[in-house]
């Protein structure tokens, strides 16, 4: 019986049932077939989702339709792939990765921010798998996200999906990075323009030199790439116009994001070039300063092997002439404290973290202790408040609390 007390107006029977005529719900008398009342032919969406016997979350539709964030994420992945101009295959791979990662319990309940970053990380992993050189910094710029967050999400994702994503070497990154610099004649003035190929070639040599001089290991790759490209650009045509350009202005002109670390790398690279430039025989021992070295970069790079050898040998000579003088002093110095490491054999090029080592905190001499000694009562008492202190503290807290209440 549909409703108690409903009587058929035709035959008076109480046997009214719910029936549907196609999709129109009707109340029909079971004896005579008269239609007692009708419902609406159409239903609204909310009635369909909320008025059903089975809840939406328990129905199978929930599984079939992907949630909105997943759709947004896939769109983001596709957009990133288009911006980076990746192949169709890579786009597909990135999408698959993203879907897999998104559904995984590690990522399904993660904050929206992380899900956004996850899209970028999938693209990065795909690029690495296909040996397409992309730096993490690029993804960082594109997503405008915190690099640490990207790092965390990336590593978790790689672990979760168990994919092998070998990191790209810095030389590969250089080419891609170079493409971003808008220095063709149609973008900038004739005098300031440079072809991408020449720039890459010269920058690669500079980068190699930097790597040999310990400027690359352990550091972020993008600043050193920027620095080498800048110096390459300056040295390919060392006119006064170009030399007057600072790194910041150069980045602005080439429409590349500035970095605060790149100027330091420029200084370091110039120092290395100066050391080598010093050995050029036709200078006859003239001082080579960071300002004047740019003009000589061409010569330095062409003959750098010879210059390296000469620099090493002259450095060794310098050390040898120093050590007989300081030999006696060092012996006395050894007793007092452990001498600075690396001082015995200072090589020509050293990682900057070694050259400018942080001053260590004085090591407290470790006392020989058994761990089972007696603990003096007085020492323990010094860590416990006196009753007077406790009372004072409680009073002060109450006074603060009451003054806060008044406010």
């Amino acid at each position, binding site marked *: 019986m549909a409703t108690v007390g409903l009587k058929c107006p035709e035959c008076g029977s109480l046997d009214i049932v719910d029936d549907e005529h196609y999709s129109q719900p009707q109340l029909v008398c079971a004896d005579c077939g008269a239609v007692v009342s009708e419902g609406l032919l159409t239903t609204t969406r909310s009635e369909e989702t909320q008025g059903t016997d089975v809840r939406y979350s328990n129905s199978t539709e929930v599984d079939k339709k992907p949630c909105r964030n997943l759709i947004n994420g896939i769109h983001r992945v596709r957009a990133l792939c288009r911006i980076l101009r990746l192949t169709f295959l890579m786009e597909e791979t990135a999408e698959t990765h993203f879907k897999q990662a998104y559904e995984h319990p590690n990522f399904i309940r993660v904050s929206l921010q992380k899900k956004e970053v996850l899209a970028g990380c999938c693209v990065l992993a795909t690029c690495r798998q296909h040996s397409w050189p992309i730096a993490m910094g690029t993804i960082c710029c594109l997503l405008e996200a915190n690099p640490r967050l990207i790092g965390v999400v990336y590593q978790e994702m790689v672990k979760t999906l168990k994919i092998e994503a070998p990191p790209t070497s810095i030389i590969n990154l250089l080419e*891609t990075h170079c493409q971003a610099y808008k220095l063709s004649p149609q973008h900038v003035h004739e005098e300031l323009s440079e072809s991408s190929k020449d720039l890459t070639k010269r920058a690669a040599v500079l980068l190699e030199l930097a790597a040999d001089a310990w400027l690359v290991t352990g550091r972020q790759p993008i600043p050193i790439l920027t620095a080498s490209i800048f110096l390459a650009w300056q040295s390919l045509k060392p006119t006064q116009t170009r030399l007057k350009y600072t790194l910041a202005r150069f980045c602005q002109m080439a429409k590349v994001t500035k970095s605060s670390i790149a100027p330091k790398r420029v200084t370091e690279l110039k120092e290395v070039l100066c050391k080598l430039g010093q050995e050029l025989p036709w200078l006859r021992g003239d001082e080579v300063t960071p300002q004047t070295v740019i003009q000589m970069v061409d010569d330095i790079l062409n003959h750098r092997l010879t210059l390296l050898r000469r620099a090493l040998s002259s450095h060794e000579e310098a050390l040898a002439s120093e050590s007989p003088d300081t030999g006696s002093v060092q012996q006395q110095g050894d007793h007092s404290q452990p001498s600075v490491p690396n001082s015995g054999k200072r090589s020509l090029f050293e990682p900057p973290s070694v050259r400018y080592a942080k001053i260590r905190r004085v090591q407290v001499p470790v006392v020989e202790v058994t761990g089972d000694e007696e603990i003096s009562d007085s020492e323990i008492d010094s860590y416990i408040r006196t009753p007077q202190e406790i009372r004072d503290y409680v009073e002060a807290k109450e006074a603060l609390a009451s003054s806060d209440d008044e406010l």
Partner: protein
Amino acid sequence: MDEDSALNDPIANVPVSTLHVQYFDDPIANVSVSISGTDCQCQGDYESSQCSGPSYLSSLSQPEKDVGKDLDLSFLPEETSGNDASNANVTQDSGVFDACRQEESAETDPKKVAMPGASTFCPMTPVTPVAESSGIIPMLQNIVSTVNLACPLDLKSIALQARNAEYNPKRFDAVIMRILEPRTTALIFSSGKMVCTGAKSEELCHLAARKFARVVQKLGFPAKFLDFKIHNMVGSCDVCFPIRLEGLLLDHQQFSSYVPELFPGLIYRMVKPRIVLMIFVSGKVVLTGAKERREIYEAFENIYPILKGFRKQ
């Protein structure tokens, strides 16, 4: 000839680099190294991968399977499978950090001609050549331990009565207590369990934990001292020469993780003993994850010959 001998001792000698011999014979402009593995289609501005110039860096981009064709690996130290050299190191912390060991003795060691077996087998533990021990002893920097005081504690009253305690239940549900001698910190939970950190040796850690327990006792709780256990030990030392992290990554790919964009050091997960090492370009090494002091010493003795192989000669 002076020039030739100087050529053999160049600044850019990377022990594992595959093309280092070619590097010095061919001038820059003549050699073009094609970077393998890129399947980029030439869309837009991307050029095909041709990077001229042999370099240590481009050699790193070659996958390991290209290694071994025309190589002269005589500069590699001999690698023999076998037990580690018996550690002549002292097992207790001598307290003196022997940082200034002269490296001349290492260089005069007779390094025999190596066999190119480096890439044919991948042992689970790093194979150490038969050489003398390093003479450097890692110093312990931090020890984390737990102990059970076996009685429920009223954290508010502890925070009220103790001078050296801080308690902020909204931030973290434990009392943070510190003592001056030995300089350590303890986290004391209401269940009676306690975590003690900051000590520089096992005995100091034990002493500090006992002092914390004594303080809690004096505050009026029937604290005991059960199940004292050390969970983690951290040590550090300096090998005193710079290290080529890229080369180390290439050689020990299955153990190492080096992502300079995220962290400047290389993270090396040694299998036996199960220790994580953070190796930096300056030569400093941090070892962590040990339950015993011996594991830290063993791990360092295992890694030292490997690191020596990546030293610039």
